[in-house]
């Protein structure tokens, strides 16, 4: 089968990579989407529905639903937050978009603002993402004087505040209710849901929180239509997706591919295959819910549904490839440690439970654990989900459960006494 090298780049197309220069952005195809949206703001939500745009920040939640929920609220002080907190290992797509195409992202956020009639649009950017905040701040400054922004303001019934802010730069700061806390000026503590931010978010106002990649896509949908967007994908999936490929491959990097591209193609064609002499073992998918894909799943089309059908998650599109000889247990322990360290502290079961998981995994990895320890791991996977206000602990459990499901023998082989 001839590999279908992608040519239809959207978000990463060279002509869009103009950096923070607004004039350069508007002199190309930039701004067209926003102008079109200004003509028919009331059709935007159904347009997103027709296009099948889903949240690309990890959960794949239909974007139109969030927008519709917020739009339906009577409160005039609605808020859009572009979530650029990206902080987990192996994901590096949002930093690229924010640095190289800040106006693409801002335009999408303004369209979202139009759609829900927001009076405030916040670009929430991880300060540790190199170059991202500077580019965004510069880009936002240029919009302030531009008549297009005033036009959006007029359309939403009052001046629209567009601003860039640094996120606290903690992993947990990306969770949507933590985003709300942080934008309000506090520590990024997640909150219990409901209420969802679309009903009550920043300062109690209805708030749409979308990922950078999601919002970057919006102007293109407005410009080219729903059918075009749907046609970008393969295997019935819509659009394109940014994949952050890393690990034991020849050419790690960021790849924009049709949604639904098979995993094997990403690794063996775009990624140039495994590093010399290494044999493929598994992929850790990145995102708030980490899972594993194995050799048996190399053929999986990388879209939300297909990956889920194999019991895994597409997540943020981060694909971390590991080769034979890598200890799955150790890798998983690293992940769990990351989660444990990132837990905000509000919910003791999340913090202490993830530490306990990490502790048990480390014991298994060093050959000091017994069957009882493995039983304890599985029991925690049963007990912990849902015990925190946000999804962090569930994420920690998912990676453990997913690895146990696929590599149980590796765990068992490590047990003391066989």
């Amino acid at each position, binding site marked *: 089968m001839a590999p279908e090298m992608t040519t239809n780049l959207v978000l990463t197309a060279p002509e869009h990579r103009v950096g923070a220069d607004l004039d350069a952005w508007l002199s190309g195809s930039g701004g067209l989407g926003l102008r079109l949206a200004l003509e028919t703001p009331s059709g935007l939500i159904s347009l997103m529905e027709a296009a099948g745009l889903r949240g690309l920040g990890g959960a794949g939640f239909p974007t139109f639903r969030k927008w519709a929920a917020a739009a339906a609220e009577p409160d005039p002080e609605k808020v859009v937050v572009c979530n650029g907190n990206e902080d987990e290992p192996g994901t590096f797509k949002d930093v690229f978009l924010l640095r190289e195409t800040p106006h693409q992202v801002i335009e999408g956020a303004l369209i979202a603002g139009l759609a829900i009639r927001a009076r405030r649009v916040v670009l929430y950017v991880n300060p540790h993402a190199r170059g991202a905040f500077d580019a965004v701040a510069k880009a936002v400054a240029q919009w302030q004087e531009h008549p297009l922004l005033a036009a959006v303001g007029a359309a939403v019934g009052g001046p629209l505040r567009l601003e860039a802010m640094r996120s606290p730069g903690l992993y947990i700061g990306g969770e949507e209710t933590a985003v709300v806390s942080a934008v309000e000026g506090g*520590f990024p*503590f997640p909150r219990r849901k409901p209420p969802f931010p679309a009903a009550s978010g920043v300062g109690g106002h209805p708030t749409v929180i979308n990922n950078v990649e999601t919002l970057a896509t919006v102007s293109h949908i407005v410009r080219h239509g729903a059918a075009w967007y749907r046609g970008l994908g393969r295997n019935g999936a819509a659009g394109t997706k940014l994949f952050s490929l890393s690990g034991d491959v020849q050419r790690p990097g960021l790849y924009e591919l049709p949604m639904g591209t098979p995993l094997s193609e990403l690794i063996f064609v775009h990624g140039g295959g495994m590093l010399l002499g290494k044999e493929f073992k598994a992929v850790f998918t990145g995102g708030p819910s980490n899972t594993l894909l194995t050799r048996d799943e190399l053929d999986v089309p990388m879209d939300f549904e297909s990956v889920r059908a194999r019991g895994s998650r597409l997540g943020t599109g981060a694909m971390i490839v590991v080769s034979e000889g890598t200890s799955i247990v150790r890798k998983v322990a690293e992940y769990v440690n990351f989660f444990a360290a990132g*837990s*905000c*502290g*509000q*919910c*003791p*079961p999340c*913090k*202490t*439970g993830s*530490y*306990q998981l990490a*502790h048990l995994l480390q014991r298994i990895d060093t050959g000091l654990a017994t069957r*009882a320890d493995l*039983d*304890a791991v*599985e*029991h*925690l996977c*049963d*007990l*912990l989900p*849902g*015990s925190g206000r946000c999804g962090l602990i569930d994420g920690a459990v998912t990676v453990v459960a997913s690895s146990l499901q696929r590599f149980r023998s590796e765990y068992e082989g490590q047990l003391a006494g066989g």
Partner: protein
Amino acid sequence: MVNLTIDGRPASVPEGTTIVLAAATAGIALTTNVGCMGQGVCGACRALVRRTGEPEVRTALACETPVEDGMQVSFLDRVAPRRPHAYSETDLVDGWTAYERVLAVFPEAVRCRHCSGCDRACPKGLEVQKGVNLAASGDIAGAAAVFDLCVMCNLCVAACPEHIAPNHLGLFARRLAAAGTQRPADLIRRLHEITSGAMTIDADACTDKQP
């Protein structure tokens, strides 16, 4: 009988049994995570507990928590502070510098993010966060009092995202308060009587059983 699951093992025990005793019947060796066996003072039997129908998972000391039907229990190992907060006995004596030492030995204390995780984690219901904040603001005696009944289970160590080690900070405050300020007059007088030779013991003096 009450049925529950402990670290993945089913247990079936009479009502009124504690989790620790139930664990023993479930075939879990009681060689770790247990000490005083019921008094609730050694802090070794930390556990996470989910009760039937409750979404919440709570911390508990397993030796003082009675079993309930459908309970799920996971024991928690002792989490040591990420780094030892080291000081020596000579750090304890000078009350004028006690606050400086608190800040120097526990620099994390001023970074409390007020997540209340420690308060929620404490199986003894202590106002841990308040204790941390008192110590960080120089009220050593106030902080010490908060930790009067702390059993050093270290659950707050595991729970604190800022690695403050609240209980060890509390204990430092307690030790500073005692070593730095407690000077009982009657004890001092008795020590003087002994060192000056005024009070001695006649080891052959007592021969009768009844006083």
